[in-house]
């Protein structure tokens, strides 16, 4: 038996499950997946590089991802992985084999390709200002402003502007939902983990949503503008899904609420930085935004230049910040006016890349990036966002069960010195004792801290502050990072709450 084929057998030399019809190929061409041209050695290489979980091995090797969709290869790969890791197929499991793909007709490819693209009210302004675009769901958002060849420099300049003066970012892609009616508070208590019925009028609160299994599916901010009127924001990618979720639950519960997908009517931007309040005062918001009238987490409906506006004192980037929602058709005019008013104070637009650095410095998670389809609040340190004493809410039973179990992973912060290459990137693996035990969820260079910072999902025994994580970067280079408490920046929240 060739060396590669020997891995089909268990540690004792016995077959993993039962004798397999393995016949060594005279020239060593031991194919596992004919679609993807994969041999036994390719699967073994995946395992040796740390992708020892059957699902990771599949994705790394692409075994089972061709037209036959694993019908031929899934079990064979499972046996090879089991053999190479000293397990049985019972413990490795098998990947999902789906019906084979059908060929696409040429006719289907003819005609115009229609891909719906959303544009914010300020899209044209961003383009004129030299925005470099990034895809965000069906939107295009400015990643940064300036030439791609100097991307890192532009991003760092934008970060510094927010930390030292003020920046403005278009956040119109966020979802927005009006929940109104006598039972609005009760309804939101049932669909979010926190208690929102106790929210004072003109106040906002972080709102976390989990599914029936307790997994995080969205987060946002809930604002109360009247006793029976709330406005909740959602993440960009989940806006439609959350709205559908709310409608679905309301169809079951029949509470006295009305739910409107209000997001499309609003454009929104966030003015953040130590000079934000002064700039908005210059722009005409006056004393309505002073510290007493608009403390941290306040939310108010105002009139600005004869137009309705909603202003929320929130700080995703960790500075004094005002999220301003204005009617879609009036938003660009307001954006331009505020930028003009802020020019003497050094206000400048910033893009999503800078926003990601800023929020990472604050240790704020992005749902869908720092969480996956199984992540529950306790794993990312958000027990505080769960009102355990509420009688019930979607996912409560599952969270109670999960809370009693021994956690098997935890989101931690890490940092390491900056170098020019081999930087940890999202999805790079955390290696421990030769096995992949975790992954990087966020990583970036922090101009403020002058080091690489990031978040990683790791087993609890690796989550101790001051401990070390071995992160396998490009070209199999292992970089050692130190586990750090979050937030990395302004841990007492003095800047965003000022």
């Amino acid at each position, binding site marked *: 038996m060739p060396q590669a084929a020997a891995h089909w057998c268990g540690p004792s030399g016995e077959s993993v499950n039962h004798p397999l019809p393995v016949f060594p190929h005279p020239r060593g061409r031991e194919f596992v997946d004919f679609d993807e041209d994969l041999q036994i050695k390719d699967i073994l290489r995946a395992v040796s590089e740390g992708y020892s979980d059957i699902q990771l091995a599949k994705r790394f090797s692409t075994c089972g991802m061709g037209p036959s969709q694993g019908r031929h290869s899934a079990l064979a790969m499972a046996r090879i992985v089991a053999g190479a890791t000293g397990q049985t197929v019972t413990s490795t499991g098998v990947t999902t084999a789906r019906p084979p793909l059908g060929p696409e007709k040429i006719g289907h490819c003819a005609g*115009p390709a229609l891909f719906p693209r959303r*544009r914010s009210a300020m899209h044209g302004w961003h383009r004129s200002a030299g925005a470099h675009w990034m895809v965000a769901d069906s939107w295009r958002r400015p990643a940064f402003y300036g030439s791609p060849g100097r991307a890192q420099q532009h991003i760092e300049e934008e970060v510094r502007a927010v930390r030292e003066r003020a920046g403005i970012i278009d956040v119109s892609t966020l979802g927005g939902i009006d929940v109104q009616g006598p039972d609005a508070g009760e309804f939101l208590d049932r669909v979010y983990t926190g208690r929102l019925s106790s929210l004072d009028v003109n106040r906002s609160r972080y709102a976390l949503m989990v599914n029936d299994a307790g997994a995080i599916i969205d987060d946002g901010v809930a604002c109360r503008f009247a006793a029976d009127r709330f406005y909740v924001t959602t993440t960009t990618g989940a806006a439609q899904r959350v709205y559908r979720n709310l409608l679905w639950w309301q169809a079951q519960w029949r509470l006295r609420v009305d739910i409107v997908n209000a997001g499309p*009517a609003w454009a929104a931007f966030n003015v953040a930085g130590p000079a934000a309040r002064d700039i908005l005062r210059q722009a*005409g918001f*006056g004393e309505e935004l002073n510290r007493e009238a608009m403390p941290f987490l306040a939310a108010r409906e105002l009139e600005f230049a004869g137009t309705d506006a909603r202003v929320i004192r929130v700080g995703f980037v960790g500075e004094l910040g005002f999220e301003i929602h204005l*009617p879609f058709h009036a938003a660009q005019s307001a954006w331009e006016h505020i930028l003009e008013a802020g020019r003497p104070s050094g206000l400048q637009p910033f893009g999503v890349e800078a926003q990601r650095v800023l929020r990472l410095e604050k240790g704020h998670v992005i749902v869908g990036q720092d969480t996956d389809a199984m992540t529950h609040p306790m794993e990312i340190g958000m027990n505080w966002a769960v009102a355990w004493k509420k009688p019930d809410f979607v996912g409560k039973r599952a969270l109670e069960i999960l809370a009693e179990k021994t956690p098997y992973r935890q989101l931690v912060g890490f940092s390491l010195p900056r170098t020019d290459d081999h930087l940890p990137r999202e999805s790079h693996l955390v290696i421990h004792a030769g096995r992949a035990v975790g992954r990087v969820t966020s990583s970036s260079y922090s101009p403020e801290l002058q080091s690489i910072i990031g978040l990683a999902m790791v087993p609890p025994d690796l989550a101790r502050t001051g401990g070390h994580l071995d992160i396998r970067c490009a070209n199999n280079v292992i970089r050692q990072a130190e586990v750090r408490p979050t937030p990395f920046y302004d841990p007492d929240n003095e800047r965003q709450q000022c």
Partner: protein
Amino acid sequence: MLGRDGQPASLTQRSALHDWHQAHGAVFKPVAGQQMVACYDQGDREPHALATLGLVDLSLWPRRGYRGPGVEHWLSPRLALPSGVNQARQTERGDWVLRTGAFEYWWLSSLAGASAGQLPEEPAERPADGVYDLNIANSHALIALSGEEAPACLAGPCALDLRPDRFGPACLAQTQVAGINVQILRLHALAAPVFLLFCESSLALYLWESLLLAGRDLGAVAAGTDALEAQLTRARPDSEDGS
């Protein structure tokens, strides 16, 4: 011009298609209190184009929306409401009332005539609860698609059969056009068919360009409100329920 405490006196309302209009030589003029496209450089072609196939951006045209369990009781004494969902009705003054849900109505100002572009004050004595505002003036863009070829233009991107015998005057449908949600209203029988298409504002440019693409071989052109007004004034509709 600055107003109170450095505020602008007012915020300029811009359609989501504003940049497209500018790039294509639009001539703006105040219509219904907003700066809307009166015509493009090739303005003399537009009346003819609207008889064949033309698109007009009416995103800034005045409209309101209401919903909630009390809305029918509140509106019915003042407005003749459509009798069923997905139906529309034109009022005596030329406004359109669209019933987009069991408890949801959209109120669109008349497109032509003396009251064009003006909405009357909303009914007073709003009930304490059960009636909620919908900001459809901002949430949705409004595009008019006019001309004999309009049903043919929509035949590709929309699965509905929009020919007159299947989708008659004052019919309203909530469907998909080019893969996005769109509400389509067919106006009363005119010299040529006119459809009003509502889509989310953020998708306005996508829908606009998709319609121009779908109508390219049919001669589709963009037109301004001057040509649309002429088109609508040429043949005034009879007021009937579209049920």
